């Protein structure tokens, strides 16, 4: 048997020194890693720390247990308990102190040799060392030694020597450094006769008392009265008695598969039992830094378990145990941990030694609790501290604007007024901020739809009886639109070249082209569209579209212009004029190979168009990089009815599947469109675009449950962001299309005298106004200048501050500084409104009330009213996130 199981001990004096002991003792120093490359003689403990070997002591064989002397003058004085029961003092490193030098190599020898199980220095009287031994007939098993004792062999020999076995005696005499002055044989006190001692702890609040784990019971001994023993409890859990450094009365002990927590004041029964997996425990240690944290390690186990004992009042008359938060750490993964120790410099930090002799410094992290705020802020609690973390989008450039989370995007767009531009609808795309092609397509589609609403098809039937059928035809999207009328074949000959291409025409198809943007409203000419494309430097697209409209010359001109402006592709314009109708020409071959090298989808389409057989346009129709609207427009021109319907159906399904907003062109704002939008929302959570788009155009879709859901979700989001003004604008916009969404009147103002609603004064009928909306409450200064009740002509209540009757404009605030005047003017509209406290029902002009509470007032301005009007509502303290 090589000695004790490996153990790590942290220095009681130093924060950075520790020993590892198994067959020998090694002293290490832990340092932060300075230069990782330079540290060759060190052992990395973690990314931040490394250990340096300082000294090794292998002079003490047969080690069974070890204890580090807590004396401040003795730096590395260790007591080693040996297999034969002797206790040897040894030291690591150079001890300068003379007294300590005397102590080292001292030996304390019990009468009968047997294994020494445990050692414990008295923390206060540091000359006292308790040693627990195995049972030996009627001998004592717990010996307290005084390390300063001068009892040498000379004194003890006479009495003690005869009791030694012959072998022992021989060994003592033969010890090479047989300096008998170092040997002590007379203990200061002896306890535990006829018993075995497995663990010892000095009781922290009384340095004369010892608690020992004897065989099957815990016993308290008193140094002052060595004849007495006081039974603490009968328990199997007698190993590793250890007091909690933070609670003097709490200690832990363990037995196989069980840890018992005791209260020293409450004997007989443990306060708490922690059930471990049924394995031999090897170490139980309290955290020196944090109260109530206990770590346990089972033999051959890779898991260090931590028990965080909550400080709880014991429920009266109940045996429920206080709650424990159990944690575990696996510093070596599945590898077994041989030993561990707490690192006293920080909480929950440990040093562990694996069975493969690897050291590891690790921290058992606190459980982090966190929460997301509505503004994209994340807040978490780690231990006792809070950390708040915000997404900094300003730091990074355009790339991350795209990458930004949809929450941030939506907020930014809401602030920009996105979606509320109803005149020039496509401007919403610019308001959206980043160049999302899908949003671009969506808003342009909506723009064209709105532009074409007055276009009617008397001959087309769109279903019967449903709400959908009442919609203007353009809302139905290209897919349904083109099915309404079959296209007439038209053979077109390109003006410049003798190309014969078959195109199809119908009224519905030309409307579809309008929706695609290829034709302006009510006009069949593509030139205006091409010009606008040129303005945006979309040379290739313009060229392709002009070619599809069979204007080859124009296409070449456009490409030349593009080349001149430096944006277009230079060589290509020269290629196109070589166009021949000859199927097998060299030109075709060349174009075919060139096409593969082109990166621009429109240029590819140009060459596909020029080189392909008449009537087979699959290469263009399946060019997925081309905008959907251009593909659809192309299809509307060149495909016959059957092909067109099949193509559009296929494309629509693709769009719906992927939630691609470009597909709105095909579906329109119908059930299909809502399906498509639903799949877009599922994919992106961009409920903003969904609800704004649906609110943009028709009132039919608004009643759909899903649309309502989007609208409500978006409003909730605006509320959470405190964008009250934006939400109000959104609500106004919504109620225009959906009168049902208009909020019901929430406040009715009635006259104090006659009890009639004063709002009836504003309406011609004189009836209590159901139609009266909340926006008029209190009377805006423009509309109703009445200062008396319209029913009984009695005056209306007065403002509590200026004492002028309701219905008049507010004067500039009394005593208000000049520089505030401008602000007052800005807000004058609202300032002259009447407002009142819902609790005490006192009120007045909003501006006056605001300035009253903004100053040092908390109470209502009406005398003798102690209502704290402004404080009553917590949301009153919420300022709008952005005042516009």
């Amino acid at each position, binding site marked *: 048997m090589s000695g004790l199981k490996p153990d790590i001990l942290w220095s009681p004096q130093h924060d950075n020194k520790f020993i*590892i002991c198994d067959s020998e003792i090694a002293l290490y120093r832990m340092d932060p890693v300075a230069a990782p490359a330079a540290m060759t003689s060190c*052992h*990395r403990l973690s*990314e931040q720390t490394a250990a340096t070997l300082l000294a*090794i002591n292998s002079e003490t064989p047969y080690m069974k247990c070890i204890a580090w002397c807590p004396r401040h003058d003795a730096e590395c004085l260790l007591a080693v308990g040996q297999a034969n029961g002797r206790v040897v003092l040894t030291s690591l490193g150079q001890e300068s102190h003379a007294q300590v030098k005397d102590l080292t190599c001292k030996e304390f020898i019990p009468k009968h040799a047997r294994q020494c199980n445990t050692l414990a220095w008295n923390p206060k009287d540091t000359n006292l060392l308790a040693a627990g031994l195995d049972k030996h007939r009627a001998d004592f098993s717990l010996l307290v030694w005084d390390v300063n004792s001068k009892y040498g062999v000379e004194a003890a020999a006479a009495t003690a020597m005869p009791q030694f076995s012959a072998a022992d005696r021989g060994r003592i005499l033969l010890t090479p450094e047989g300096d008998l002055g170092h040997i002590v044989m007379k203990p200061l006190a002896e306890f535990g006769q006829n018993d075995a001692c497995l663990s010892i702890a000095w009781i922290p609040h009384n340095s004369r008392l010892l608690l020992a784990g004897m065989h099957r019971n815990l016993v308290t001994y008193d140094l002052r009265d060595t004849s007495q023993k006081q039974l603490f409890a009968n328990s199997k859990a007698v190993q590793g008695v250890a007091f909690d450094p933070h609670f003097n009365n709490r200690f832990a002990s363990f037995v196989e598969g069980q840890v018992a927590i005791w209260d020293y004041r409450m004997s007989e029964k443990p306060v708490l039992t922690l059930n471990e997996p049924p394995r031999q425990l090897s170490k139980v240690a309290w955290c020196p830094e944090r109260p109530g944290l206990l770590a346990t390690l089972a033999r051959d186990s890779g898991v260090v378990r931590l028990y965080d004992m909550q400080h709880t*009042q014991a429920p009266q008359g109940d045996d429920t145990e206080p709650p424990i938060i159990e944690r575990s750490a*696996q510093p070596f993964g*599945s590898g077994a941990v041989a030993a561990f120790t707490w690192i006293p410099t920080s909480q929950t930090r440990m040093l562990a030694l694996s069975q*493969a002799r*690897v*050291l590891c410094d*690790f*921290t058992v*992290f606190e*459980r*982090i*609790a*966190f*929460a*997301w*705020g509505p503004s*994209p802020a*994340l*807040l978490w*609690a780690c231990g*006792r*501290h*809070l*950390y708040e*973390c915000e997404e*900094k989008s300003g*730091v990074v450039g355009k790339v991350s604007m795209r990458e930004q*989370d949809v*929450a941030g995007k939506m907020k930014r767009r809401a602030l920009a007024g996105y979606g509320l531009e109803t005149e020039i609808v496509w401007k919403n795309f610019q308001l959206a901020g980043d160049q999302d092609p899908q949003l671009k397509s969506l808003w342009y589609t909506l723009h064209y739809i709105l532009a074409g609403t007055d276009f009617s098809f008397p001959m087309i039937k769109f279903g019967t009886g449903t709400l959908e059928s009442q919609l203007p035809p353009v809302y139905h999207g290209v897919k349904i639109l083109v099915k309404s009328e079959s296209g007439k074949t038209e053979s077109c000959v390109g003006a410049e070249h003798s190309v014969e291409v078959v195109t199809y025409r119908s009224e519905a198809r030309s409307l579809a082209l309008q929706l695609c943007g290829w034709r302006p409203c009510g006009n069949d000419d593509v030139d205006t569209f091409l010009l606008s494309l040129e303005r945006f430097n979309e040379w290739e697209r313009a060229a392709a579209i002009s070619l599809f409209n069979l204007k080859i010359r124009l296409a070449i001109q456009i490409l030349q212009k593009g080349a001149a402006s430096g944006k277009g592709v230079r060589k290509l314009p020269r290629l196109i004029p070589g166009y021949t109708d000859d199927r097998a020409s060299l030109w075709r071959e060349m174009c075919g190979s060139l096409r593969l090298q082109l990166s621009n989808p429109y240029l590819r389409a140009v060459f596909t168009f020029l080189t392909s057989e008449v009537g087979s346009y699959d290469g263009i129709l399946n060019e997925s990089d081309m905008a959907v609207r251009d593909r659809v427009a192309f299809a509307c021109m060149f495909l016959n009815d059957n092909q067109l319907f099949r193509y559009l159906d296929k494309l629509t399904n693709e769009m719906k599947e992927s939630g691609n907003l470009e597909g709105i062109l095909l579906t329109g704002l119908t059930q299909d469109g809502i399906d498509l939008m639903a799949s877009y929302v599922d*994919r*992106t*959570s961009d409920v903003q675009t*969904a609800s704004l788009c649906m609110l943009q155009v028709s009132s039919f879709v608004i*009643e759909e*449950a899903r649309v309502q*859901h989007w609208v409500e979700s978006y409003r909730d*989001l605006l509320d*959470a962001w*405190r964008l009250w003004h934006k939400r109000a604008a959104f609500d106004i916009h919504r109620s225009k299309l959906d009168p*049902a969404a208009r909020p019901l009147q*929430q406040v009715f103002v*009635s006259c104090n005298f006659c009890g009639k609603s004063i709002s009836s004064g504003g309406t011609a009928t004189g009836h209590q106004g159901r139609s009266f909306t909340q926006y008029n409450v209190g009377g805006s200064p423009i509309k109703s200048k009445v200062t008396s009740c319209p029913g009984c002509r009695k005056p209306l*209540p*007065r403002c509590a501050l200026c*004492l002028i009757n*309701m219905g008049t404009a507010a004067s500039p605030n009394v005593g208000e500084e000049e520089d505030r005047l401008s602000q007052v003017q800005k807000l004058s509209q609202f300032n002259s409104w009447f407002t*009142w406290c*819902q*609790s005490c029902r006192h009120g007045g002009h909003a501006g006056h009330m605001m300035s009253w509470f903004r100053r040092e007032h908390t109470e209502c301005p009406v*005398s003798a009213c102690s209502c704290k009007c402004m*404080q*009553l*509502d*917590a949301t*009153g303290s919420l300022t709008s996130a952005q005042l516009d």
Partner: protein
Amino acid sequence: MYVAHRVSADHKDLIHDVAYDFHGQRLATCSSDQSVKVWDRNENSEWICTASWKTHCGSVWRVTWAHPEFGQVLASCSSDRTAAIWEEVVGESTDRQRTQSHWVKRTTLVDSRTSVTDVRFGPKHLGLVLAACSADGVIRLYEAPDIMELSQWSLQHELSCRLSCSCISWNPSCFRGHPPMLAVGSDDSSISSGGKVQVFEYNENTRKYGRVETLLMVPEPVHDLAFAPNLGRSCHLLAIASRDVRIIQLKPLRREGVLSQPVSPGRFETQQLAQFDGHGAQVWRVAWNATGTVLASSGDDGCVRLWKANYLGNWKCVGVLKGDGSPVQGDGAGSAQTVPGCANTSGGPITPISGFPILNGNHAIRNRLPCTSPYFLPPDDNLRSASRVNAVPLPVPHPLPPLPHPLPHSAGNRIPSHPEHRITRRMSSNIIWSSHDSANQ
């Protein structure tokens, strides 16, 4: 790019939970020191503690805010086997700056016989509803029938999930086709007791909550779960903190056409969208951002990780922060490089020193489990280890007529949620102003 800064919390023990209010302007924290603290943002957006009081006789596990529509109301739960409802009262303090606010206990819910592990207010369209779950495996749903009188709470439902409950989450969807739903996680540690996440849904016909789903794919103890804010989506996302982070999609199966009504309640297509073991150890918490697009998780590695789906629906780590706020070396998203794939300790370089048992100098030893696979799961196919469960093809019954015009939410009508319109919860149809005879003066 995420930047963190520290807020001094001044709790005397571990903080177990933090909660933002609806507007993100207030904060509640709870701790093992048995107290709850409320924080308000001041003008400089610093957090100022405006209230701190002892709430329970045990560790306070969780704290949660009610929707501001119901006033300033908090619920807390504790190991002392109770949950409590708190309301802020004003007018007590004379200080205009509201440096200290006053919170009053409105009620104590004492039905549980064991530690109450989680409390959550239901979504606001259900009214003021509170769900509490306890370690004895019972979920209790309380309701305040009169939101003006918060001391009256009635126990409406008691659901048993037979396993020790650790966490609970309401489905926040306000879509009327989605019946009230909540998910419960259990920290029962035996694998044999089956799935640790159970989903309950309210059945209109029986007027009871019934278990509609047990996620058998999560056999390990669950420490936290969270439904993503619905935000108009047709399916529900549930994030689960267990041995790893999982995102599970619950898609209500419904017939085409009648979208507002599920075919039969409780039929879901359950699909696991993602599973990350980036923490390398137990995961303790998960939380969604306001849009349900970014998921945060915290685990035994002491880090907070952020996950986000790209446009293809593949979830990736987009940020890592250590618990103390410092960025992980090698920057957030690229943290895959900071941790070598394997912390194999025995095979590393060996540096024998003076005959002493060898200490390994391998710096790969870390406070985490060794990852035999690369740190982050490879994207695409492996990540989307999609397992379809319960995809039962249903017979399509006779089509129902579409429902009439959707009603606006009744709760939303009863109390306007707009703060500008709502000054207190007290409202009446009449007003009396200062009709005192000041005109004489």
